[in-house]
């Protein structure tokens, strides 16, 4: 019986410390020290929130760079993050990649069979990957430039400007944030957000 009584009391004490005081104090501290980041790194254009820097969103128009295929809900559903769970020998994976490869080659002038960047035709781990590889961005430059009537050099310059290198010089992989790049394109052409 002594075990039971001590266990119940210890359950309550640890609940108060670890389950209430700790998360609330940390929330208070985070809100004071890093308010923007603690609240989701939201991106505003003309005072209106258009998304989060960290959470991928879908773009369909040819004049925007497009993110990777997504397995989150029906695509970039930030209430239902998920990966595809397709194994390497699953026909469903091969079929999906085959369709994506064809679509990307048709949509992007200059992109050829065998050179389609792998991240362009595979789903990410979160389904909310905000980034694409530099190779993926470069493959879309010709299409975006044509759709916007900009020169390829100007678009490529923006890609280079919005490429994040390895963190601390060696961690992770270089990547391009799709939302930031697209906002930069709009602002370069003086387009106001809707």
């Amino acid at each position: 019986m002594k075990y039971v009584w001590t266990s119940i009391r210890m359950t309550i004490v640890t609940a108060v410390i670890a389950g209430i005081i700790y998360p609330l104090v940390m929330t208070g501290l985070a809100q004071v020290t890093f308010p923007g980041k603690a609240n989701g790194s939201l991106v505003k254009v003309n005072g209106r929130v258009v998304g989060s820097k960290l959470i991928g969103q879908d773009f369909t128009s040819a004049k925007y760079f497009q993110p990777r295929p997504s397995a989150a809900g029906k695509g970039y559903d930030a209430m239902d993050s998920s990966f595809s769970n397709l194994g390497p020998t699953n026909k469903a994976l091969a079929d999906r990649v085959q369709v994506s490869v064809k679509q990307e080659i048709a949509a992007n002038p200059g992109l050829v069979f065998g050179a389609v960047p792998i991240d362009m035709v595979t789903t990410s781990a979160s389904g909310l990957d905000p980034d694409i590889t530099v190779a993926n961005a470069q493959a879309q430059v010709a299409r975006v430039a044509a759709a916007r009537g900009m020169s390829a050099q100007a678009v490529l310059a923006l890609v280079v400007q919005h490429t994040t290198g390895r963190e601390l010089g060696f961690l992770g992989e270089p990547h391009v944030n799709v939302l930031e790049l697209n906002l930069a394109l709009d602002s370069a052409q003086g387009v106001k957000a809707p």
Partner: protein
Amino acid sequence: MGWGILQIVVFVVLLGLIAKPLGAYMAHVFRNERTFLDPVVRPVEKLTYRLCGVDETREMGVVGYAMSLLVFNLAVLLFMYAILRLQGHLPLNPAHIPDMSPTVAFNTSVSFATNTNWQVYVPESQVSLLSQMLALARENFVSAAVGIAAAVAFIRGLTRHSGKQLGNFWVDMTRSFLYVLLPIAIIGTLVLVSQGVVQNLDGPKHVVTIEGVTQSIAQGPFASQEIIKELGTNGGGSYNANSAHPYENPTPLTNLVEMLAILAIPVALTYTFGRFAGSQRQGWALFAAAMVILLMSVTVMYASEQKGNPILTKLGASQASTATQAGGNMEGKEVRFGIASSILFSTVTTDTSCGAVNNGHDSLTPIAGGTAMLNMALGEVVFGGVGVGIMGLLVNAILAVFIAGLMVGRTPEYLGKKIEGREMKLAVLAVLYFCVTALGFAALAAIVPAGKNAALNPGPHGLSEILYGTISQTGNNGSAFAGLTASGRFWSTIGGFCMMWGRFFFIIPCLALASSLAGKKSVPPSPGTFPTTGPIFVVLLVGVILIVGALTYFPALALGPIVEQFLMNAGKLFG
């Protein structure tokens, strides 16, 4: 690949640097000596004992220790179950999430109480913010503290020379919670927030994108939960995509911090063990053996994933590593992590009982997925989960000296204590429960329709999903080949058994073993004593771990990942 190898090397060096200071600090904490945190933490500790009626000077034998541990686990489990079942009626539920169903709440409570943290729930739509804090995050602290307490008792038993006492469970648990887990978690939370992990009490944010589509983005107090989820090798995510989600793991730097958090305590406990044993070299020998296996695992997985999936190459995709892309098998991986940061995380999370994932394990190339499975099947002894990992390593060390003893025809000794029939029986029991449970249930699931049909992928990959499921739950890992639908009645039930047995059929025999050794007189070393500090012992220990694991699991792995690797290379598809 050069950058990837550099990341792995830096990670390993950082682990080596953490081991000594944290391990020495924990030795102070668990010898109940003064630490630099005493001025702040000691009053809270004393208050805790007063409120709970704990006499901190009283030591317990194996029965008292084990009973306290079991009853406390049960109490926290029931508390958690109640919160999940009632969350719809409780505050801090901005997304208006209803009460959790009995099956899912039961599975989740068991899963967190056993340090498994298998996710049958979708957090974004099934867990309120109050449940995240008071049920999930809090259980993360407690199950980790319980694991460390058990390990400390085990180490005491091995290193004491008189009596059968193992320490006081309540004191060990409280001290690992207040002196080790909480301070590191507080610092870690702020580091993660500084990089973009969310920490707020808001409901989902609804934004309208520039193309005019509405996107709802789930929010919550998740940095404070993320850090303890890694530090306590728990692994249950605030989001469905776990540590792949950009709000849980936004940058390569947070990825490094999270991997270090997973291994920090298990690595440091090898040093703490050395302190207790009175010979630091005893601890470093365990460190070296575990590190050798970690590096083997990383090498195999990295090579396999970087090579990619030849089927996708034939379809026109480029998986080559170039200046503009990392290449490799990117299905189920994030661009910011690429291959190296993803597979290192996979190794770390399956070497320990963590089970957090930053990539979709189900989509790993077969050999890489099989290596992740083998890591868990070896008993998660490559540093292992907080607490239980060092116990597993020590049980294997006892097996190793026993085998060495057989070879030369001498009674084996470890730390100067004779290993006799009773100890060997308990050690073998602690090793055998795992394969019997994991392989037994996998075999059952492979022949029962309810078990088989839960697998998403056809062909040998389906068997891999089943195997991964039972191995992960028995090992209290909690990562998954998540194509397996484990929320049905069949899988929920066998999952519950696997998790419970995996946790307590390991801890209880270990405590009994410790108690049995505690009372033994130390024998002074003689020229015939097999030294357990040198390279020969390290090689023997690695050999024992790998050979026992390989012999046990090779037939099953041959039918799953190994055959799938050959078929993938031959371009064969299933569907």
